[in-house]
């Protein structure tokens, strides 16, 4: 039974409003684990938080190299926060390479915790240091805490006789223990997690718990250098309810299952592993009891084709991928549009083009999503804006796909996929069902007979007597569904396919203004995961008296009916995007507004400060010093 003696009382802790901590080390060092355990504990303690995992594409890059550095940033606060933080207040660098890569981001005067035990001649050389920065004064701008974490860990786990290599693995737990002491985090959840993870090797669990406690005790008992103390961050005000942490990919997976339940339909996922979407395949593969059949296909094309076959046979086909996979799926998407079958495609966007930056975030697939097929080939496109929103938009995707007999492309990105935030767990039983209606009646049937309101064709499923029919990608006659090359018919069919998708605008919410008035000097328009940074930046600007509003679009095609009118009410329109200008082009083309792009294509989310600076620049107002 693990119990914890009361540690440093909160009365002797400095009260701070929010803090951003970045853990960085070798990609095999367990930084993701350390960070996410810290985040879990933080969430359980009632802070609002946002995380940003940052890992290299290579699975295990050579130890000690700068391209093998893996990081995890947690921003937590006593108030509502929306981003993982612009720059860390605290950097924990487990080796010289981690210091080299991350030091430039640490705030001047920030706290720098370094594992001096890893600052060996060999590691320093690999990281490109001639001499150790720990000793040459180059880190004087920061509050430096030098600890031989390697040695301290070995001491702590010595009684467990694990051998040096295994023992050193517990370094991250020691470090976590120290940071938990420093920021007043509870250890119970991590200890419980360790005991579960190492259930088959209890002495390894014991060793890790010992390391965790040893790091914590070190904080309690050792004399810290001046300027380094311990802190507490009060609980945030969140709406009452039951909460959990959720990542975007988890939320997407559960949202799809919820959608399937609400539609009353079996789901079939055809997917292929691709960073950063693979965990959707993994998660759903473990949840076949929840109404989904999962299939790892031989490639991206087989994945979507199997999903299309499943939809043809009366299930709801889904596929999940990233940018390069979406490119491969283009022809099959065209077939789904031409045969008007329901289909869900989740694109978890990443740095492009081509292989690009698999583990870095970007939102550069918008134009591909809107246009990337041959011919006039419209389909519905929606985009989630926070990890929790992935749940709601996944349900929307199911609703729209089945109601309008169309593929729906749900755009998220690597940041949303892996980032966690506290999420008020919904009650599925309170959500409005949208049951699927198959065609059964042979009277008056042909495969492209349409609902006059939605323009969706009837869904006649193989196995239904009297409705035998053939569909395919060749153009078909409006009146019979048979192959037709008739000129007027092709024009009519092109128009009706476009009208069907455009008509969805009557079935989606009007665009709302997130902050500010619905007209004025400047509106910042975003989509996808820029939500947090834009919201905070606009909040900050408004606090300094600037007249700026925030609009965030979640329905990319069709867009809400009132969007044009809203945009035209502003003198200036700013469109921050993690791409080289895509939504901005669409807004200019559709609404004839002089929208201005603000583009950052670095594989990293926007910093709040960057958007705030752009707001000031567009309004011609000096930034406060």
């Amino acid at each position: 039974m693990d119990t914890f003696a009361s540690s440093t009382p909160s009365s002797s802790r400095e009260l701070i409003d929010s803090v951003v901590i970045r853990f960085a080390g070798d990609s095999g060092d367990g930084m993701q684990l350390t960070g996410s355990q810290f985040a879990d504990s933080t969430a359980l303690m009632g802070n609002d938080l946002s995380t940003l995992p940052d890992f290299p594409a290579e699975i295990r890059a050579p130890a000690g190299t700068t391209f093998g550095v893996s990081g995890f940033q947690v921003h937590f606060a006593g108030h509502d926060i929306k981003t993982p933080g612009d720059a860390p207040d605290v950097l924990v660098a487990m080796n010289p390479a981690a210091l080299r890569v991350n030091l430039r981001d640490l705030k001047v005067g920030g706290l720098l915790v370094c594992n001096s035990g890893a600052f060996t001649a060999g590691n320093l050389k690999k990281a490109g240091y001639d001499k150790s920065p720990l000793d040459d004064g180059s880190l004087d701008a920061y509050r430096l805490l030098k600890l031989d974490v390697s040695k301290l860990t070995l001491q702590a786990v010595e009684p467990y006789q694990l051998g040096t290599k295994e023992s050193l693995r517990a370094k991250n737990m020691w470090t976590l223990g120290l940071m938990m002491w420093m920021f007043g985090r509870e250890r119970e959840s991590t200890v419980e997690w360790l005991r579960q993870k190492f259930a088959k090797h209890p002495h390894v669990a014991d060793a890790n718990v010992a390391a965790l406690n040893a790091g914590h005790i070190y904080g309690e008992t050792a004399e810290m250098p001046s300027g380094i103390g311990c802190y507490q961050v009060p609980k945030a005000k969140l709406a009452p309810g039951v909460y959990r942490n959720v990542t975007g990919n988890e939320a997407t997976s559960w949202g799809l299952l919820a959608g399937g339940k609400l539609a009353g339909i079996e789901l079939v996922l055809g997917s292929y592993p691709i960073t950063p979407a693979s965990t959707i395949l993994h998660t759903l593969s473990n949840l076949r009891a929840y109404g989904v059949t999962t299939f790892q296909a031989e490639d991206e094309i087989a994945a979507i084709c199997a999903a299309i076959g499943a939809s043809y046979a009366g299930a709801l086909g889904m596929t999940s991928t990233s940018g390069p996979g979406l490119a491969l799926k283009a022809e099959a998407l065209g077939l789904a549009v031409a045969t008007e079958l329901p289909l869900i495609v989740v694109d978890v966007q990443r740095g492009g083009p081509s292989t690009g930056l698999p583990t870095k975030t970007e939102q550069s697939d918008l134009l591909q999503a809107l246009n990337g097929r041959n011919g006039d080939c419209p389909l519905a496109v929606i985009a989630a804006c926070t990890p929790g929103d992935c749940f709601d938009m996944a349900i929307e995707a199911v609703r729209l796909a089945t109601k309008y007999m169309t593929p729906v492309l749900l755009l998220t990105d690597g940041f949303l996929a892996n980032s966690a935030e506290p999420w008020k767990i919904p009650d599925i039983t309170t959500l409005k069902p949208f049951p699927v209606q198959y065609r059964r009646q042979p009277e008056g049937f042909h495969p492209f007979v349409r609902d006059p309101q939605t323009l969706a064709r009837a869904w006649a499923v193989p196995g239904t007597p009297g409705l035998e029919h053939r569909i395919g990608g060749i153009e078909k006659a409006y009146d019979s569904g048979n192959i037709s090359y008739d000129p007027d018919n092709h024009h009519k069919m092109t128009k009706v396919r476009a009208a069907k998708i455009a008509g969805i605008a009557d079935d989606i919410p009007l665009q709302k203004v997130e902050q500010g008035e619905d007209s004025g000097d400047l509106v910042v328009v975003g989509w996808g995961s820029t939500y947090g940074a834009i919201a905070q930046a606009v909040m900050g600007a408004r606090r300094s008296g600037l007249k700026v509003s925030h609009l965030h679009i979640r329905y990319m095609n069709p867009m809400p009916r009132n969007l044009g009118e809203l945009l035209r009410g502003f003198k200036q329109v700013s469109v921050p995007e993690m791409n080289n200008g895509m939504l901005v082009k669409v807004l200019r083309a559709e609404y004839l507004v002089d929208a201005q792009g603000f583009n950052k294509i670095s594989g990293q989310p926007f910093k709040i400060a960057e958007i705030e600076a752009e707001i000031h620049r567009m309004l011609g107002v000096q930034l406060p010093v």
Partner: protein
Amino acid sequence: MTPLDPPSTPLTRKDFTSDQEVRWCPGCGDYAILAAVQRMLPELGVRKENTVFVSGIGCSSRFPYYMNTYGFHTIHGRAPAVATGVKLANPDLDVWMITGDGDGLSIGGNHMMHLLRRNVNLQLILFNNRIYGLTKGQYSPTSLLGKRSPSTPMGSVDNPVVPAAFALGCGGRFVARAVDTDAKSLIATLKRAHEFQGTGFVEVFQNCPVFNDGAFEHFTARDLAAETQLHLEHGKPMRFGKDNTKGLRLRPGKLELEVVTLGEYGVTEADILVHDEHNHTTAFLLANLEPPVFPVALGVLFNSATPGPSFDHGMHEQNRQARAKGPGDLNALMRKGHTWLVEPEAT
């Protein structure tokens, strides 16, 4: 009444024929295949509404439009993947996959390999005319070396793939061959494929009169057929020839087949190899036989004695296991792990 029960009143060929005008070129071997399938289906006692034809792109792949069943004309090379999806959604559907040498072995080769290795329960008919018909005559992966075509005016420098050998190599558990105009054998072979629980692969030698006329004349012509076709029957000796005096045996001391004539060089009936359709090695040897030295092996080359469960069966068995305790409770799932309660603010 399940979809697998026969129809309440027996169906006829007309019931399986759609109202669409057939648009293949006059003299195309596809007409013969269509007629054979339309005649066979009522004899199988299958339900129209339970039957699905899935095709790719090519002349072969126009097939679904002429069948009064469910049909899906998909995209080039991808019919195996679509058909797999159909079986995942509803494993009770009786699926026929139609492809050609181009659709199935150029762009579709990869998907075909995976379908065969997975052993998805459907029938696969590959119309092999050794040419690209629909796009007007370019050479295909089964065209012979040196084939002159619009894209290979100097003759192709590609060696062809042997579809039956490819199917065996991919792990196909049922591999058979037939000639388009030999309705009796074609129907018998297709019925065997239908019976097989898994991927029933049937290659049909099909004549394209416009772009590759007579590609198989050397063994399908009436006056040559007897000497150049070996009709395989499990448990029967591999004999052929006008007087049925020719046969196959293993060359003594080597793992290769040779043609022998009864009565010559001391060859007796006992020397002739008896066809064992369960033998994978024999099947592979048979698949690669070509005139003029050897006859073309037709009928069921391979029918695995241990095919294992079909892919769709395996997947649905897993679904059953996963759902054995009832459908999952999503509300409960989302509340597992670390959760915390935020109380309403004390006023």
